[in-house]
């Protein structure tokens, strides 16, 4: 559900950037979705495919890059890959960890013409 409104935010953002750059079309849009961003990446991608029709993005190649979660254990300082916010440290089982990556949810770049 909210992936749908997030996809609409992308279309609005792309529309504003196209206007600002006096571009006719956006050929490519590159998006990063972190594994710990709270966005379900597959649902977001499906929603995006639906909402780009009739928008400035209708011809664009959409590149979605997932960013793995990264955490640092507060007890033993180990840096490890996190798949969920609730993952415990694989070395000492401590929780919580300081999240240092994977919260991204952003448009990285567009290619306009």
């Amino acid at each position, binding site marked *: 559900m909210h992936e749908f*409104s*997030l996809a609409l*935010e992308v279309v609005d953002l792309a529309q504003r950037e196209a206007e600002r*750059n006096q571009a006719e079309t956006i050929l490519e849009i590159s998006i990063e979705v972190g594994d710990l961003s709270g966005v379900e990446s597959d649902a977001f991608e499906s929603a995006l495919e639906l909402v780009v029709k009739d928008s400035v993005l209708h011809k664009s190649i959409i590149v979605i890059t997932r960013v793995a979660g990264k955490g640092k254990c507060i007890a033993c300082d180990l840096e490890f890959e996190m798949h969920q*916010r609730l993952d415990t440290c694989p070395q000492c089982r401590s929780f919580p960890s300081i999240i240092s990556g994977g919260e991204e*949810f952003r448009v990285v770049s567009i*290619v306009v013409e």
Partner: protein
Amino acid sequence: MCDTCGCSETDDSQNHHNHHHPKKLINLNVSILSENNRLAAINRKSFEEHNILSLNLVSSPGSGKTTILEKTIEALIPSRKIFVIEGDQQTLLDADRIEKAGAPAIQINTGSGCHLDAKMVGNAMQKLNTESGSILFIENVGNLVCPAMFDLGEFKRVVVISVTEGEDKPLKYPYMFKSSHLCLINKSDLLPYVDFDVEKAISYARSINPGLEFIVLSAKSGEGMQLWFDWLLRQG
């Protein structure tokens, strides 16, 4: 000028668009929520300028947000002015309940949308004639997932859970608990009848958000409600 596309090059080839429109890569690195965040910042500034205490109430459906607001209105009016923005997918029922309790309310129906956003709140504020020194409660759509990402410009976010929901709620919906300032644990009158471990719920929530405050209360029996009113008055 090229007649087909309006670009400044002359189209001297037979084959249009042999000439090239330059492709341009634009690095943005902007949050997809940047527009919502911008509008939320405008709301926040306006709340501050008008001395309005704004609180965003989030919970699963049926945790007791509207009931808590009804009781709060009955207890605090007339010494404190209260205004309410009600978000629901459908119906005006909650706004009617609030008006009956004695506070002006505006209902926003989000239709298929599952959360309020900063723009909706900004628009609703144009219609509510809020007064300086008042409290603005924003009751979000009952949903612990979607409203988490959308800043409304509120001063603080209050997450409500009820003891009938199971104490693992904070672990299942970490984003909401991480982004909240206060957690109301409602329906404490039902504690004797359900297996809800208050301490466990609090420790789960603290593991996600160490700074989270808690109040255990019952909108029905009134137990703990004074702690909530005191918390409100401490916010200004």
